[in-house]
């Protein structure tokens, strides 16, 4: 059975593009990704200790280009960009994790149920989920975010709405194929209850793919979150946020103040790349036939 996770994550194609730089099966890809992720996690956790300045208050002159005191420069209000980027990773990761948690908490149980029970319930759920899935991700997130308003949880929910169908699809399709495996039939023949079969026979066998989807989803969630903040639908301004800083910085791009968009943008790119490498490496590790496919 092909257990390969095939989903339309932007980060999945990024990861795939980078695959040729790494020797297949060496695990270096997942390792590189993991290193990047750990760096960002540490930055997020210890932002207070690392950051030289408070990211929300003026710390020097406005529009300072990178120098020894402000290594990433300052923005139009004189706030230290390095501190803002550091603190920004906090918001980015927090929202991404909450969003992924919500998406998984909705998508996985529904996918299990839909795939296992089948019949009319399955058809209705697939129809709903496919309808949601067919929307362009960012547009849907903007629509939901516009209705819900700003705030960490609201942004997380609007991102979760976009990605819950992905979990649903992956889980449902695998469940419906695992359901017909002989060991499930054998479990029925020994008198196992449906819940037992679902939780002990089916779920553990789909988990490897869930892990991969989770890490891909984190990368995409960060991009969507940055997109929402860029459009002013994300976190309320004083809080440091990469997307907001990008949109703030691009107003001054004609003044050649490149550092204001360079560093938040770079942070987004590197973090997304880290997740992509990690998930693709993981995918390759958990599904050894991925490399042979292409």
């Amino acid at each position, binding site marked *: 059975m092909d257990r390969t996770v095939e989903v339309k994550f932007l980060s999945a194609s990024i990861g795939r593009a980078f695959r040729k730089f790494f020797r297949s099966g060496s695990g270096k890809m997942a390792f590189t990704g993991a290193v990047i992720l750990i760096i960002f996690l540490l930055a997020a956790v210890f932002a207070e200790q690392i950051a030289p300045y408070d990211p929300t208050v003026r710390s020097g002159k406005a529009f300072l280009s990178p120098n020894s005191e402000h290594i990433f420069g300052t923005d139009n209000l004189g706030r230290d960009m390095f501190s803002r980027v550091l603190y920004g990773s906090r918001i980015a990761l927090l929202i991404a994790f909450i969003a992924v948690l919500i998406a998984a908490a909705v998508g996985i149980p529904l996918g299990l149920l839909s795939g296992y029970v089948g*019949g009319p319930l399955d058809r209705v759920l697939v129809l709903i989920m496919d309808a949601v899935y067919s929307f362009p991700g960012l547009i849907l997130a903007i629509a939901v975010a516009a209705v819900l308003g700003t705030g960490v949880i609201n942004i997380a929910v609007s991102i979760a709405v976009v990605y819950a169908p992905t979990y649903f699809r992956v889980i449902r399709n695998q469940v419906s194929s695992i359901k017909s495996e002989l*060991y499930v039939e054998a479990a029925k*023949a020994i*008198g*196992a209850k449906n819940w037992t079969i679902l939780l002990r026979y089916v779920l*553990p066998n789909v988990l490897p793919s869930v892990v991969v989807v989770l890490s891909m989803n984190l990368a995409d969630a960060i991009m969507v979150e940055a997109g929402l903040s860029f459009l002013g639908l994300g976190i309320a301004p004083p809080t440091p946020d990469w997307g907001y800083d990008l949109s703030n910085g691009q107003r001054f791009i004609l003044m050649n103040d490149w550092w204001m968009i360079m560093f938040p943008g770079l942070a987004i790119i590197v973090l997304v790349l880290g997740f992509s490498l990690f998930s693709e490496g993981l995918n390759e590790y958990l599904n050894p036939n991925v490399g042979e496919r292409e």
Partner: protein
Amino acid sequence: MNIVDGKEAVCRIEDFRVHYMTFDGPVKAVDGVNMEVYREETLGLVGESGCGKSTLGSALLKILPRTARMSGKVYLEGEDLMSKMEKEMQKLRGAKIAMIFQDPMTSLNPIMKVKDHFTEMIRTHKPEVSEEQALEMAARALEEVGISESRLNDYPFQFSGGMRQRMMIALSIVLRPALVIADEPTTSLDVIVQAQILQLMKEIQSHIRSSMILITHDLGVVAEMAHRIGVMYAGHLVELAPRDVIYYRPLHPYTVALLESVPNTDINDMDLDYIEGYPPSLLNIGEGCRFADRCPKVMKLCRDRTPPDVQIDEEHIVKCWLYADSFEEDEDNASG
């Protein structure tokens, strides 16, 4: 409990039908089967692919796909299985009626340890049994099939096909079911392992005193194992008799043809006998004997009306017009 001719029937199947509902109409995979399985006996069920023998086996546990519709009666130790709800069936499966599947490579959960398969099985049916007691039972069951207790902590992939089938056997007998259904238990094994497994099943069966329905297409296997043999063709049970009667005095033209088509190892006889034609499609099939088109002794009547179950003697039943004494009488039998 039903005592028939001094033999106790563990399982009684009456006018049992399984029809698969498809968009094109019902596929009559099992159509009007009557039989009994006596205590401690092995009933071999033979027939070619698609004759309904596996469907019949799974139907007894009621684990068929949703599209299957069952009718008729199945009594297991006096209990009517067909009237049971799913919850009640779950209690019976594994405990009173167990199944051994064809492919041992895929019939065990790849991510569950051997001991977990056992404890889950035991504790599902006997919640009062403690984890340690369950492990002890598992160890004893493994011992019975010749696998060391030390392998309880291994995963299924660490076993060979033959050993996995031993495990499946151990798993199916650990709760001492009254009836074991073995659906082609040795088909995917090589001949040496096959012989070992069959020998093991024979020993275990006499040891735990259960009954067995052995489903196979291998006439050699049933000759070795079965006390009685039922021959199925296109959803009908065409002949049911003690083993020696089937092999030495078969009556139904299909049984005769089937036995003639068994390949032998005589190199002077290189012609492979086979039965001309194909089994009929079971989709929307109507009245009449289903073997009629391939039968060398076909009569006009055969195509018009389904033959009755003719009782040749106490233990020999043939579903064929050739042996019906008079049509009126048999019509009474068939409808009554």
